[in-house]
């Protein structure tokens, strides 16, 4: 029971702010006589999908020699087809606007079908080398299928997966951090991250401007900014002499993002830009004192942090969040 809400409902009913029916229903929920288990159902479905796809992976690893590649590829493909057939049968008609899921299970059966499809494709490619030396391009196919599915069945979750898979196709993921520390071709990785980041931000803009699934904008926008700002920050933190150029680029992009997100009322974009700019400026503050212990950069970093706090408070006061 939430005693504060229960007593408020009684007072609001006495003051005739709430009708008798409203008060009775709200009271049931506040007293926990009616409880939603929607979140728990979602978690069970998510963990179920996770375990099932892991089980399929373990099956292939342990028994692909004994069962044979055709049987494995066929059975995984069949399972994927069964899931996707269920989705096709239950799906509401396509619309460029937001379409509510017909049930809480819909998104997860769709996810399971697509994950099994991706596993099957990866397995087929590994076994039969259809793409030959360009085997990694199967990720492009998987990403494209995810993207189409996200639009057809209006799933933000699948869209997020599509964007991450397409970025992974070009080597961009969490590895951007380790690569900036010296593993792999950092230049190529960073260029890919910037290109994908810009592309996703453009897609976010287009989805709103053209009114084509405008509710996908936060997924496109956040993924794009994460890649774009992450790539620029990794450039600033890199060893070598070019970090100043990256810093200028980072500050320019971060300022632009702050300005646009302030105008659009998008707090998460604004927060990413502030953090990226702050991390980039730390390099500027600490670089001259690389070989000596000085309190100056720490003091300047603290003052810069206070400045950022003032900016955050001022932006929050004036921004109209949407």
């Amino acid at each position, binding site marked *: 029971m939430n005693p504060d809400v229960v007593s408020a409902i009684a007072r609001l009913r006495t003051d005739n*702010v709430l009708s008798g029916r409203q008060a009775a229903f709200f009271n049931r929920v506040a007293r*926990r006589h009616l409880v939603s288990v929607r979140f728990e*159902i979602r978690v*069970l479905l998510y963990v*179920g999908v996770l375990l099932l796809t892991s*089980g399929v*992976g373990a099956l*292939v690893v342990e028994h692909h020699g004994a069962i044979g590649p055709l049987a494995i590829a066929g059975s995984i493909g069949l399972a994927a087809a069964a899931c996707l057939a269920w989705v096709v049968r239950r799906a509401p008609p396509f619309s460029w606007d937001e379409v509510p899921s017909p049930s809480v299970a819909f998104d997860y059966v769709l996810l399971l079908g697509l994950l099994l499809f991706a596993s099957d494709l990866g397995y087929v490619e*590994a076994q039969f080398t259809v793409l030959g030396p360009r085997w990694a391009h199967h990720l492009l196919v998987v990403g494209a299928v995810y993207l189409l599915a996200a639009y057809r069945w209006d799933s933000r979750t699948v869209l997020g*997966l599509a964007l991450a898979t397409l970025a992974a196709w070009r080597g961009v993921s969490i590895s951007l951090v380790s690569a900036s520390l010296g593993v792999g071709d950092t230049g190529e990785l960073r260029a890919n991250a910037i290109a994908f980041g810009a592309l996703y931000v453009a897609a976010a803009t287009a989805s709103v401007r053209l009114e084509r699934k405008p509710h996908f904008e936060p997924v496109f926008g956040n993924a794009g900014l994460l890649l774009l700002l992450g790539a620029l920050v990794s450039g600033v933190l890199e060893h070598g002499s070019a970090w100043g150029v990256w810093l200028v680029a980072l500050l320019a992009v971060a300022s632009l993002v702050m300005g646009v997100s302030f105008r659009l009322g998008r707090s998460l974009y604004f927060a990413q830009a502030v953090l990226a700019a702050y991390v980039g400026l730390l390099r500027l503050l600490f670089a001259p004192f690389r070989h000596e212990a000085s309190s100056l950069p720490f003091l300047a970093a603290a003052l810069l942090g206070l400045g950022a706090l003032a900016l955050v408070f001022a932006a929050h006061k004036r921004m109209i969040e949407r």
Partner: protein
Amino acid sequence: MRPEGAAWERAAEVREAAEGWLRAGAVDRPTHEAIENAYPDPCVTPSAVWRILTAVMVTAVALCALGAVWIATGQPGETGLSVLLVVFAGASLVVTERLEASPRFARRGAAGATSFWGSVFFLAGLALFLHEQLRIRSDPAFDAVLLASVLVWGAGCWRWGHPLFAGLSAVSLFYLLGRLPLGRVLWVLAGAALAGLAARRLDDASWAPSHRRAAMVLVVTGVAAVYGAVNVYSLDARWLEELRRFGPRRPAPPPGLFVVAAIATAGLPLGVLAWAWRSRRTFLLDTGIVLFALSLVTLRHYVHVAPLWVVLTVSGAALIALALVAERALRRSPGSERAGLTADALFSDERRQQLLQTVPVVAAFTPAAQAAAVDKPGFAGQGGTFGGGGASEKF
């Protein structure tokens, strides 16, 4: 907690409920406005994004200021550093009090960050002081710091109402108890007592909403401590005994104790689920589900009922089937509810939940990046990964 702070929290609680009613279309906008007027909240309450951003920046300011003063004072030794940490702790706590008293700043995330770092600085300063200045041996010094941690986080929760602090205090308490002789027994007794006492306060109207949430954290921590003590794998691996002070090796527990632990490992999650069912508390239901899953993992560790892939596939399919059956049963019941449970979202922010679920899905199922391998010839002869859907197993 300040009386005015508790009053602000109560008003915010009602306004948040009214926000949910409006979102679900259960009240219209004029009614919502009337509720807001009836329960005015003077506090500025930004969204979670602003609060986290503020807390991160306050953290940067606090740590950089500490570094600046430490270097400016000639990087004093451990004693000087412990004094510096305690001074910073005092300053952080003063700032916290000022922020908490101001409706403009109390809920911006800054007070939470300063109170957290104030407590951390104090405990770090105390640890250095005991070990380096008083030359107390490691074990008693560590015990003293743990005891201080129980008190500091507990007092912080009581004063400022952060449920996280209640959790940190409880974790410190169980760590401390685990270091005593009969630590496992103490975990069971203290865990049961903590869960029982905190459960009585979950609906206590005299407690501020944040204190009730802290009680919820204490119930979960208490139940987890009891489970950690009675779990058969924890007994077998002597996890709790590892926490104890350095000393002679303890004898292995008697075999009869394993039987008792095995029964408790199976029974406790069912007990928690039954408690959740009776009380209709979803956080207990979630706890029970997690403990049940841990018990199944424990069972699999000792009893190889089937190969790993069968266990994973069958349990995954079973979970999906269970969720589907539960949802269908609830939806087909009269009024879409059964035994006080419903699969409807009621007044929660469904859209936000859907957006948030993108993060774990992408984190769990995105295949490993492989740009460097795009132009590498000859995949077949080198092995590799298959997947693209999260099943990025090597073979």
